[in-house]
């Protein structure tokens, strides 16, 4: 299956230039019924079904388990294969940052200014990014896209990764406001501190002052909404209405315990739905997070421990600590040089260090869907949800066998080709390799 698939593309690609990929087309809408039969289904909610079928029609899953093959259905024999929900990259700068280093023109992820409540990542999301195809190849079918900034970073959206333009891509627009919680670490600056410029004075005090400006902003917003008429339209205040009426979540980038606690205080004061993004030290207060129903998007697991005395594998073990405490969390992959593609393997690492494989899978599918507010549409292989799924030849979470055969977004059989594969084929041709 896989080989055949590749060779078809190989033929199509001969003679392309190095800047190829322009012939990788977003798939057209699904027509009719497709059914994958006799396969192992990893539902995404912790359960697996063996020798099961998955049927989907017009983009929606219509049956999972023991499903009769509908007349006229396209049948995919799933014998020996594994079917997984499409992976969800919970937060990223995908489509906003193409080549970060040395090419300023390719960067649209960080706006200037302290308060950018009104800026929206979706409008700059570039569906023609060369990175997107590589993510599809690695099973990532949906992604959160968020701006970055000094304090109030702006509005995030969720996109599906097979689209002609950002309006096509939008899966859930403006699902949350991102805030960057200032660090409360009284940093000394290391051995070479004298060489790098830094803010003078007390960093903790400076952070607390910034948090105060955050609170003032939300107080002002509340007051503004009570005004019958406004002297002037305030884009920043208008932008956060969704937080107050519960349509949006507040995503706070916070890694230190103090940052997380202050984020919780902020959310509670205004009744916002909070999500912690980062959460390096979240394991220290896992019970508190569970008690207060605060979900966490963990930054990648493939990180070094915070302190030299910490367990050498602490970041690998953090998901298991959260799972045990009952915290809703999902995993992310923020590695800057592999550009998100190893999300499945971050889950694999979590499975090596305390999660079950199915729990680890939930951490990159269902849990992410819940946290992003899209669990009604995706995150598991269940009837009624979008047919966002993967057919994998081996274990999705283990790199040595994680080869994705086919992927479907909203039932559309999406291309797994990309510029990298095209270059691969181009040079296989040059060297006459098989």
């Amino acid at each position, binding site marked *: 299956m896989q080989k055949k698939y590749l060779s078809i593309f190989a033929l199509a690609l001969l003679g392309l230039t*190095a800047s190829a990929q322009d012939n990788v087309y977003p798939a057209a809408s699904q027509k009719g019924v497709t059914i994958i039969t006799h396969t192992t289904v990893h539902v995404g909610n912790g359960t697996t079904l063996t020798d099961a079928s998955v049927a989907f029609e017009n983009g929606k899953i219509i049956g999972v388990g023991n499903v009769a093959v509908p007349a006229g259905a396209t049948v995919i024999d799933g014998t020996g294969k594994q079917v997984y929900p499409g992976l969800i990259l919970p937060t990223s700068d995908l489509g906003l940052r193409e*080549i*970060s*280093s*040395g*090419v300023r023109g390719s960067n649209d992820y960080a706006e200037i200014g302290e308060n950018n409540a009104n800026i929206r990542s979706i409008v700059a999301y570039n569906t023609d990014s*060369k*990175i997107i195809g*590589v993510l599809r190849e690695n099973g990532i079918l949906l992604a959160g896209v968020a701006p970055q900034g000094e304090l109030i970073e702006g509005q995030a959206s969720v996109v599906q990764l097979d689209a002609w333009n950002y309006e096509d891509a939008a899966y859930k627009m403006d699902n949350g406001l991102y805030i960057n919680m200032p660090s409360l*670490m*009284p*940093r*000394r*600056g*290391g*051995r*070479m501190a*004298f*060489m790098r*410029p830094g803010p003078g004075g007390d960093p903790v005090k400076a952070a607390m002052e910034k948090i105060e400006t955050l609170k003032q902003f939300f107080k002002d917003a509340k007051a503004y909404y009570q005004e019958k008429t406004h002297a002037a339209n305030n884009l920043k205040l208008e932008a956060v209405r969704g937080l107050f009426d519960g349509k949006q979540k507040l995503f706070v980038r916070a890694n*230190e*315990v103090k940052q997380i606690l202050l984020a919780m205080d902020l959310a509670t004061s205004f009744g916002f739905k909070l999500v912690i993004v980062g959460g*390096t*030290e979240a394991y220290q207060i896992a019970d508190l997070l569970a008690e207060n129903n605060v979900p966490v998007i963990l930054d*990648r697991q*493939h*990180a*070094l*421990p*915070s*302190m*030299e*005395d910490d367990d*050498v594998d602490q*970041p690998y073990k953090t998901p298991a600590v959260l799972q045990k405490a009952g915290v809703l969390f999902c995993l992310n992959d923020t*590695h*800057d*040089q*592999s*550009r998100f*593609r190893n999300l499945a*393997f971050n889950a*694999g*690492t979590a499975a*090596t260090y305390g999660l079950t494989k199915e729990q680890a899978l939930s951490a990159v599918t269902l849990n992410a869907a819940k946290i992003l507010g899209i669990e009604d549409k995706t995150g598991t292989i269940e009837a009624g949800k979008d047919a966002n799924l993967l057919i994998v030849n081996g274990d999705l*979470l*283990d*790199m*040595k*066998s*994680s*080869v994705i055969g086919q992927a479907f977004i909203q039932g559309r059989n999406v291309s797994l080709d990309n510029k*990298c*594969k095209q*270059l*691969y084929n181009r*040079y*296989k041709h040059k*060297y006459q*390799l098989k």
Partner: protein
Amino acid sequence: MRRIILSLLLLVIGATAFAQESFPINGVRDVRTGVYAFTNATIIQNEKTKIEKGTLVIKQGKIVAVGVTVEIPKEAIIVDCNGKFIYPSFVDPLTDYGANTPKRTAAGFNFGAAAQFGSNKAGAYNWNQAIKPEVNAVESFSTDDAVAMSFRNNGYGVVFTHVKDGIARGTGAVVTLASTNENNSILKSKAAQVFSFDKGTSTQSYPSSLMGSIALLRQTYLDAKWYATKPAAEGVNLSLEAFNANAGLPQIFVGDDKWSTLRADRIAKEFGTQYIIRGGDNGYQRIDELAKIKASYILGLDFPVALDVEDANDARFVSLAEMKHWELAPTNPAAFEKAGINFSFSAADMRDGKQFLSNLRKAVQYGLSETKALEALTKTPAQQIGVYDQVGSLEAGKLANFLITTEPIFNSNTKIIENWIQGNKYDVNASEWNNFAGKYKLTINNAGTKTDYTVEIKKDLSANVIGVDTLSAKISVSESLVKISFPEKKGRGAESIRLSGVIASGAWNGFGTDAKGGKLTWSASLTAPATAVVEEKKAAETVKLISKVTYPFVGLGNEIVPQQETILIKNATVWTNEKEGNLQNTDVLLKAGKISKIGKGLTEAGARVIDGTGKYLSPGIIDEHSHIGALSINEGAQSTTAEVRVGDNMNPEDINIYRQLSGGVTSSHILHGSANTIGGQTQLIKLRWGTTDEGLKFAGADPFIKFALGENVKRTTSTNNNRFPDTRMGVEEVLTDAFDKAVDYQKAMKANPTTTRRDLELEALTEIMNKKRFITCHSYVQTEITYAMRAIEKFNAQGYDFNINTFTHILDGYKVADKMKKHGSSAATFSDWFAYKTEVTDAIAYNAAIMHNVGVNTVINSDDAEMARRLNQEAGKIVKYGGVSEEDAFKMVTLNPAKALHIENKVGSIKVGKDADVVLWSENPLSIYAKSLYTIVDGTVYFDREKDAERSKQITAERTKLIQKMLGDKRAGMPTRPATPSTQILLECGDHDHNEDLNTIYESQKN
């Protein structure tokens, strides 16, 4: 305050013994005898000799006689020192007192700024601004009484002073701390030459790293030697001239750290000299190594104060090592003494100079003998700076530099009363001179009615007046004036009787007012002096320490460094990397650090048996491209820095060594960064956790050097690059030019070996050309890969046949794999990196598979401290991307890097006779589910997953105890400092961002 100092100064000058003959006097001469006799004192003549009831006679600033039976000259002013102690004043062997050290500009050195290639110092001096042996502190020295006073108050009489700036700092002078003019306070104009690794205020770009500083100093020694041959081409070089002139002086090196000490000593030994080393306060952590080098040391007494760990969140980010050092630092001097090392103390550069005496006493409390302590304050420093003939003990003919103290100097309440320097008195705690403790008879005459009281006065002047009642009195004494007040009777609201008077020759007389305001007179005299309270000294044994020294000195270090064992691994699946392939149910015996036997049913008496059932044994992972375990990585100040050596600045205490052992890594190739075309010499290490900097090195391996091409070396991210080259076209020419120069150098060396300047940079290049050193070249795009090969192949025509041994990064390698194969290069790349800079826009994860299939020796490396511990998984990705077989993929992190590094005869596979560098995995080593259970290097278990879990628990326990102890200090009112995070410092090559973690500070030395 200012006026007081001034008047004191005038007083001193009036009484001084100095007479500077050449100076005109405004007024009339006022020359005095300057003869004093200090009698009845306990004189500590030197660290070994104590004279009870002794007399010290001084004349005109010098000691005339010391002893019990000493003739006191008639003209002597006699000072009765009954009950007092006299010590030689202390000598500080390393300060910058009065030397006018230039201040660092606030901004410091800025890597982002345009480069400064030459020295800014005008004149016929050295090419590098940080080399200034021509500086003589004596020329800029001016007395500074405020600073002098702070030294004097700590008991110092003489200091060595130098201009604390630069790598070669020139000479320092020995001066007294008397408030005389400069002319008379200088004892020795050029007493020693001083060095450091710190370029100080130099604004020149080079050196920008520790290894650059080391290379510069080594080159300077060579240049000086060469300059002595009077090379015509050099003209006059005042710096080198001075360097040679200073060679005969004592040589002091400011190391300030245990590893710096060893680094400095290696330079000294290389150039046949011996440094006196300012050793830092962490020497106790590696005392055996410090003893071995037979240096004499200068130690500080600036012990860290407790951290304020009240806030658990803040305490979380303080490392155990920092806490342990807080507890153990006061044991440092005792450790030096125990190891038989000669050392002195310096009070310079303390955060709080007032802590000097208390820290000195703390050192004694923590095990330092008083004899050694005194020697370290007097004789040793005087010897180090060559003035023991003048100071450092109390002997006739030496300077009259001595202290008068209330009690033995090491007792906790002892005060220095006076510090005499060159025969001049400086009050330190003048009020301590008199001890009024004792019983007095007080008689008050109130209009003819005499009332007698008994007054009991304690040393601190708290007193009771005993008449009808026992009444608490207030007494204050100022010079010879005394005030006493006490209540008329017991009870609240009693009115006070106030007396005021003068103390003259033991008799107290004066007048006062009674409770009703009536006038009275009074007198008092001593009836019984107080018996001296002998202070109970806390014995050294009473200091209970929680911390132990571990190797390395970090939380995850070991008290005992792991030792080589005979190990028999039974019944494992063995991935040999040899033609036998993967063997099932096989035993492997490790003995004497080598793989001794491979087979079934092996037995070995006395061997430690590890059950490998269901587990996988593989050769240790070799990381071809890493930047761990070093203190600096990039010397980017010039485009060619072949002279710098990563191996000069290893940091064996980098926690990432241990973390990578946990990921099955046994050897790492530590590369210079990619800031310049011809970077520095690399260092291959074995991950021997707990060893020294030298102990890390992989013995017998071919040496390598790092080259780099592309964006980094043309400084793409710099907005104001002024360093050639700025394009790939220029990079190619830098390569050609470098080897052109090397060819000429080699010819010149051959023709005139004695007169040709030995150039460390060109020497390294000739090593490459003669295949004694090998290139590993950072590269990305196909143009540069090709031109680098061609630039080097051009030298074939001149009879050289060296090549580019390894292309590293090489993400475009798949485009020119055939050319690389033909050139004979290995390729060391990443599995799946892409899209982080322009030159990797064509990077593909299938790169390794293509290069491998074309026949290039292909390696997967980390260049990243985090990913290095998952290199087995990175190899697993090559199965995914391109379908390379599991065996071949695993070789990319074991045997293939061994081949690329020319060590495949030692490591890289499981074969009898190879080094016992192996890993026992829980699963197929290419799987994400695989964990290293044991990582073994040279037959020594450096990582044991079960032991690691235990150690983690111990760390928590140790931290808790130390936090409690620090809190105890805080509650006891001792000083604390804020618990700022102990940051982890990761060096990066300057190519890309590295895997972050919460508390890491990156020291990118991107130029």
